[in-house]
């Protein structure tokens, strides 16, 4: 695949020598200027300066979907765009991207990723930090809820780690919960480059807490975004981001999802593009697994994921022997092991454990503290979950 458009860092950018990407980058920073609108501007005006003039002259109207999403009237948007274009420092903004080391891929150029060429709703521009050429080979998206359980977190981590070890790039959205687990797992194996698609400008790290993970993904793989620098993450960016995840992936795996959630939007987008969808079943009483269990129970072509082999079969790869994590945790004492056995693999409260063991409250409380400090259980608001393997 061709290299990404090189950006001139020379100071002489005030002249007419600006590349087309500079104009479109500026346009894409306008609120409500989505991919559909931008594609139309590009298609209708062969010269980018003409497109810019059209916006200035208020001849560019937003795509119908945008009006619904941003809850703004067409008039308001058109006026706001014209006002913004009138005072916009295109060259300065373009220089900012160059200085930040953010690359730009324009639809229709050779550098544009092949995977979006026949997409029903392709991005007009893609911004990237890291190497965009890693979007080749087999890719599996691992998506799910931000508010996951230990069960979901561990499964996402292990699936991503084992997929990466098998040479498959893991795609996710750098959100908290399952997304974080997926990226962390892929980085743990460090074999296939991880791919992230985010819903904000590449200098706006959201959620803030994921900053270190964000940088590690960019260093080992690529972080992609439809949004230029400085654009904040707003609610309607995330469904758009999810469509890109579905478009990039060969298979979409949902690890944990509530009855409603962004992961289910990714599933819809994947089905629209004919991408196979797989889901990890969960306890039927767990609200965090409801979306997954519903996907599997409904009459939809969703395959079940029990372990990494199921995914490897789905992407057509032979299951390769992957390394097993060695157990490094200190073995619990016999009495503490009995508590661990009584816990099983379902979240349990101390009251549940009291019934299942013959221990007193102080004995049980001290056993749980010891198990937690050695990494065998994970407490959360009065509930305890058994930890299968260290990691994450």
């Amino acid at each position, binding site marked *: 695949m061709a290299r990404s458009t090189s950006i001139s860092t020379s100071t002489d950018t005030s002249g007419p020598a600006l590349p087309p990407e500079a104009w479109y980058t500026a346009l894409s920073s306008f609120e409500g200027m989505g991919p559909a609108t931008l594609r139309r501007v590009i298609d209708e005006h062969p010269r980018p300066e003409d497109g810019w003039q059209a916006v200035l002259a208020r001849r560019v109207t937003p795509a119908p979907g945008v009006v619904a999403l941003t809850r703004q009237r067409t008039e308001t948007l058109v006026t706001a765009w014209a006002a913004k274009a009138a005072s916009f420092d295109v060259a300065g903004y373009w220089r900012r991207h160059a200085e930040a080391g953010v690359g730009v891929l324009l639809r229709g150029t050779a550098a544009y990723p092949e995977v979006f060429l026949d997409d029903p709703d392709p991005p007009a521009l893609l911004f990237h930090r890291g190497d965009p050429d890693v979007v080749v080979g087999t890719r599996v998206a691992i998506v799910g*809820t*931000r*508010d*996951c*359980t*230990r*069960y*979901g*977190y561990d499964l996402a981590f292990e699936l991503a780690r084992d997929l990466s070890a098998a040479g498959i790039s893991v795609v996710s959205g750098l959100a*908290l*919960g399952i*997304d*974080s*687990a997926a*990226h*962390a797992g892929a980085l743990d194996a460090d074999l296939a480059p991880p791919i992230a698609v985010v819903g904000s400008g590449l200098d706006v790290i959201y*959620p803030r*807490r*994921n900053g270190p*993970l964000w940088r590690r993904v960019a260093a080992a793989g690529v972080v992609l975004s439809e949004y230029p620098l400085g654009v904040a993450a707003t609610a309607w960016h995330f469904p758009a981001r999810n469509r890109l995840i579905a478009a990039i992936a060969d298979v979409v795996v949902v690890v*944990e999802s*509530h009855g409603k959630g962004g992961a289910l939007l990714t599933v819809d987008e994947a089905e629209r593009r004919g991408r196979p969808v797989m889901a990890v079943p969960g306890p039927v009483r*767990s*609200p*965090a*697994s409801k979306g997954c269990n519903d996907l599997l129970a409904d009459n939809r072509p969703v395959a079940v994921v029990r372990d990494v082999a199921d995914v490897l079969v789905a992407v057509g790869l032979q299951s390769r022997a992957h390394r097993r994590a060695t157990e490094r945790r200190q073995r619990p004492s016999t009495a503490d092991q009995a508590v661990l056995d009584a816990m099983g693999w379902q*979240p349990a*409260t*101390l*009251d*549940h454990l*009291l019934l299942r063991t013959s221990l007193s*409250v*102080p*004995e*049980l*409380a*001290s*056993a*749980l*503290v*010891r198990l937690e*400090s050695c990494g065998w259980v994970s*407490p*959360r*608001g*009065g*509930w305890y*979950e058994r930890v299968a393997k260290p990691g*994450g």
Partner: protein
Amino acid sequence: MLATIASATLLGVTGTPVRVEVHVSSGIPGFSIVGLPDASCREARDRVRAAVLSSKLDWPSRRVTVNLAPSGVRKAGAGLDLAIAIGLLVADEQIPAEVVAAVGFIGELGLDGSIRPVAGALPLVDALDVESVVLAPGSAVEAQLVGRHVIRAASSLTELLASLTGDEPWPALPSPDDLPPQPDPPDLADVRGHGLPRFALEVAAAGGHHLLMTGPPGSGKTMLAQRLPGLLPTLDHDDALETTRVHSAAGLALPPGGLVRQPPFRAPHHGASSVAIVGGGGAHMQPGEISIATNGVLFLDELAEFHVDVLDSLRQPLEEGVVRVARASHRTTFPARFQLIGAMNPCPCGDGGSPGGCRCSEHALARYVRRLSGPLVDRFDLRVAVTRPDPHHVVGGLPGEASAAVAARVLMARARAAERGVRCNAQLSSADLERHAPLAPDAADRLEVLLRDNRLSARGLQRVRRVALTLADLADEPPPLRSGHLDTAIGLRSEPMARALRLAG
């Protein structure tokens, strides 16, 4: 002619003696009160005049001046009414001066001449240095708690004058049995399941440790907290007197016998202002909820909903056991040795407790976490999660252990604390801990690991050690502390907040 009558006014929870000087002379008829009376005190003019006339006594048609000495102290409330009326009658020579020598008068007057009880009778009487004190019958029981004076009660001015001049014997004092009995505190046997919070409640009662319960709405946090007073030992005489003094000053109803023997339980609403919680306010400095809860329990339900300044103002009293309230004109100290019990939801949506149940946004969680300052959370030695009880426990489960059985163990643990010279282990200083809570070799090793893994800070260590000592006391195991005690103490001190809620990458 001049008359001087002994009475007292309330400043905070202590009484200040006041000499009521009444001067009746010829001149333009009039009635004025000087000596820093507040509004309710100035209104005494009208009440006293009506009461005197209603009692078929003469109102002097001369010039009447009342001075409340010392005139630098603000006088508040209607408690000086009776003393003003008696002073006026003496000065007008309607009653002889001898009969009121060495007698103090405290009471509010009704327009019909009746004598009414006032708040703070106990501290007011305590401030007086006279042989006998006359009050309304409703104040007599608590006035007797002082024990230094002969207490007289009269229900009206007419009755009082008859007894004062010796025409009639003094009316009998009301018997404490006339007051309605207090209901029993709720029993722990009603609580089913809740193994951990029950145990935490027992440890809190035994060691006097502050307790924070976190759990989803309806999980039973309030029900549990209400059962703590039933586990606490009754107050000894000094503590009971201290609490009664505050309750009296705050105008609260006192139990039969006048002395507050049961540890108080106060549960202010989360909308409460800083003054309502800490104390202060107008001219005569009302005690706040933390003082009313002294030697008892202050229960703050929905802890995270309290105003941030209110919560932060708790930190100093929690350390010192007293609260110093200062205003421009005067300052006072209230006792505030309370046990703090907090209850809160794990997150704004309330369902953060159960795995994968929380639907809060990152932003909402962060804002919720900020509401509780770290230093305040740190004051809670015990922090437990309360989960919604299993349906099997609620329906058809065995009733829990009764309060009486738990209270017996608590009493035993408190006895051990008393041997160390404190009421409960929470009051042990760091030096005391070194002396009374030595560590067994396995416990010392365990502590080293915990400190190295950053599971404990040096300050947290002292708190864990205090709780571990209480655990040993409850189990009737004399120190040294073993590692199991430390582990349990740490298990009772889990991260309470939404902080632990999300699993980050």
